[in-house]
């Protein structure tokens, strides 16, 4: 496979389409935090975009997953993490902690937790958060549905995200 010298917008979009689920799942698996996983996924693809020149073109999947994994580990190591790292090796870190023996659908698990958190928000943030995170509507679609401006919706999404991050952060501390 011939690797392009520069990562264009279309090339980046292609990479995102190919690996976004894998990268997000890795980040969520390692951190257990939806919003941390979101941020880390964005950072992963942006780092891949910036370092595309230095990539030798061999095993793109492993390269991107390496970035995602290392960023997630750095996140867990950071001082703000309340949990004291116990695991010594990477495989110990990735042992399934959420107890059920059967395969848990990641999407269901994430959305259940999100729904509970969204319901704790006051209006209009709970409605906007549900529409954005659970129904996965774009800000434009939400604005059209609620009869508000896109700027208003974007601001409400931003504020809802901050509130949800705090809720997730508190849950982790407990």
């Amino acid at each position: 496979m011939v690797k392009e010298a520069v990562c264009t917008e279309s090339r980046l979009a292609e990479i995102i389409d190919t690996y976004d689920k894998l990268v997000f799942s890795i980040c969520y698996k390692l951190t257990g935090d939806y919003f941390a996983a979101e941020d880390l996924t964005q950072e992963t693809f942006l780092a891949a975009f910036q370092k595309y020149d230095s990539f030798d073109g061999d095993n793109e999947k492993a390269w991107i997953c390496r970035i995602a994994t290392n960023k997630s580990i750095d996140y867990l190591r950071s001082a703000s993490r309340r949990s004291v790292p116990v695991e010594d090796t990477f495989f110990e870190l990735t042992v399934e902690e959420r107890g059920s023996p059967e395969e848990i659908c990641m999407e269901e698990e994430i959305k259940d937790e999100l729904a509970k958190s969204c319901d704790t928000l006051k209006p209009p943030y709970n409605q906007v958060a549900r529409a954005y995170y659970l129904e996965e509507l774009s800000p434009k679609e939400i604005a059209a549905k609620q009869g508000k401006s896109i700027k208003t919706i974007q601001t409400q999404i931003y504020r809802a995200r901050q509130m949800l991050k705090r809720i997730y952060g508190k849950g982790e501390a407990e």
Partner: protein
Amino acid sequence: MREYPTDEELMLFIEQMEQRELYAPGHLKAEILKQAFPEKTVEALPKPGGGEQRISLFTYRLKILAGMAAAIAMLMVIPSIGAESGYGEKVTKENGPQIKTEQEEAGREEEEGGVNVNFLFNENMRRANERLNSWVGRINIFE
């Protein structure tokens, strides 16, 4: 202390993950592209200095210039009118005897041991006026 995975550990981990049902939020792609290519995704702002703004700025500038010109013209014209009519001279001539009279009165009061405040005030005002008129007269010279 968590270590980064080795290449073998990473490949095993990726295989494990791919056996599961993976998920990613739908809005992530748009957000990533927006951050990577911000110029193209940001809505075009209205250009500053559009037609209407240019006209209003131009008229505002004209008004300011007109006001400045009027102020400068008044500074030039009014003192020159006063100079033509000999106002300054009239003042000195007219006030001359009055000043002398006041001086005589002030002298008398001093001899008597008192101070004419009114005279002092008027004297100072007169001197200030003379200085102002001489200064304005110099401006008129440049016309």
